[in-house]
């Protein structure tokens, strides 16, 4: 579901501080549209991970307004948050696979949480493992998988529920350039199916690989938006 202006996410003057420290994010305002591809860039410590945490509801902002799926996230009841989270796929920087579950079981987890039976989830999970070329490793535990394989399991887990938003934190940070490109193609394929993709990266070479992407740049906790395109995006047809 998108808002009246067609957006799927709106940040308005959002700030975030941990405890009583200074703000790690200040005056963040932007709008994300369905089916768009965004890169979030910035130097280490610029606040990329903190911004992503706000996007996948792992943090509550210290100030400002966040609207997602046309609802105010600040005031939404806690018991409704899982429904929002199920619409957002997350690829964590450190993968965060459940260590005692196999690759198959890790990928199946979002569908099990959504209430699908074993019979219902078998085919989509198998297809997804095939899609990330890990069908031959479906029984392997995360500890026995390589970094790239773990990354692909994490991506498969993030996208199997066909999320409306996919958030990936440095998804290519632990893989070689060839695998990075493969993963990027996976994101593009998902994006073409209508998912809004937000990829945080400090790899500037990656940005050129997706020409139609929009770039959000963070600098010391502030969003760099010199053209105002992120805050006041042009009316969209199919792409922003």
């Amino acid at each position: 579901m998108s808002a009246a202006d067609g957006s799927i996410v709106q940040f308005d003057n959002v700030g975030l501080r941990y405890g009583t420290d200074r703000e790690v994010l200040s005056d963040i305002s932007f709008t994300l549209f369905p089916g768009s591809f965004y890169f979030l860039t910035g130097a280490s410590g610029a606040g990329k991970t903190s911004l992503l945490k706000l996007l996948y509801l792992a943090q509550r902002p210290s100030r400002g307004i966040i609207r997602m799926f046309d609802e105010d996230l600040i005031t939404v009841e806690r018991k409704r948050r899982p429904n929002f989270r199920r619409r957002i796929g997350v690829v964590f920087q450190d993968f965060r696979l459940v260590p005692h579950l196999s690759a198959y079981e890790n990928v199946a987890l979002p569908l099990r949480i959504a209430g699908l039976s074993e019979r219902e989830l078998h085919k989509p999970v198998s297809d997804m493992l095939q899609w990330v070329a890990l069908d031959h490793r479906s029984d392997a535990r995360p500890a026995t998988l390589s970094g790239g394989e773990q990354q692909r399991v994490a991506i498969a887990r993030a996208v199997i529920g066909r999320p409306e938003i996919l958030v990936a934190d440095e998804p290519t940070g632990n893989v070689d350039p060839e695998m990075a490109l493969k993963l990027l193609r996976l994101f593009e394929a998902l994006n073409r199916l209508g998912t809004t993709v937000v990829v945080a990266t400090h790899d500037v070479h990656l940005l050129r690989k997706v020409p139609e992407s929009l770039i959000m740049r963070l600098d010391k906790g502030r969003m760099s938006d010199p053209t105002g395109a992120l805050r006041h995006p042009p009316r969209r047809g199919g792409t922003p």
Partner: protein
Amino acid sequence: MPRARIGGPMPWVIAIMIALTVLAAGAGLALNNLAGNARSQISGGLTVQIIEAAPAARERQTAAAMAFFESRSDVAALRRVPDSEVAALLEPWLGADVDAEDGLPVPALIDIQMRDDVTAPMLRDLRAALSRQVPVARLDAQANWLAPVFDAIRSLQWLALGLVVLLALTSIAAVWLAARSALGANHETIDIVHHLGGTDGQIAAIFQRSVAIDAAFGGVAGLLLGLAAILGLGQQFAALGSGLVAGGGLGLIDWIVIACIPLVGIVLAVLTARMTVISTLRKML
């Protein structure tokens, strides 16, 4: 969904708690039966003592008292306690000569069973009526003599109930600690499930399932241990051959109550785990 292992000593802690609870409950129920049986046997019981030193006069007064009670319609049964029986009762304290002609004179006893329970006003009226016809007669309700015994039994019953409650609270505390420990150990997995859209109820269900399995094992083991102890103790008490103790057996309902203890234990453990997990998860975003 991933499994949350509570495991460790938890099933054995629950087993010990259930075994002790079964023992305490068994003791409480047996005491209840003992008191109930004794009370029903003596609640309508009266004893008349004819305190007269001269044997002839004692016999005359005893006959008069017997006649007094025989004439009443509220008397269910009446029995003159034979002198030999009285002598046998007194022998441990007074020796074997109490029944002899030149021995110590002892009162004549009449054992009376009324149709209804003996109340205080009823006892007062009976005493007044009896004293008019047999002035040396002394009438007592049997329940009065055993009142201290009943009080002691009641105290033991409360003690058993207190033990059951304490054991239940201890079990709850043990499950609470185990659930918190498991929450800490599985924090990373919980966080992942949380981010994938898992609800508090789903995450709690993982812990509930684990606790239910542990509690079921502990419950069955504890029940078997407790039953073995009860049966062993029961046989020892039965061997005493005491009439009072023999009234303290367990009936079908009592065994059903005891069999329900592990089920109650499992429900308590699962509810405790759920409440612990839910309250911890509510602190998360």
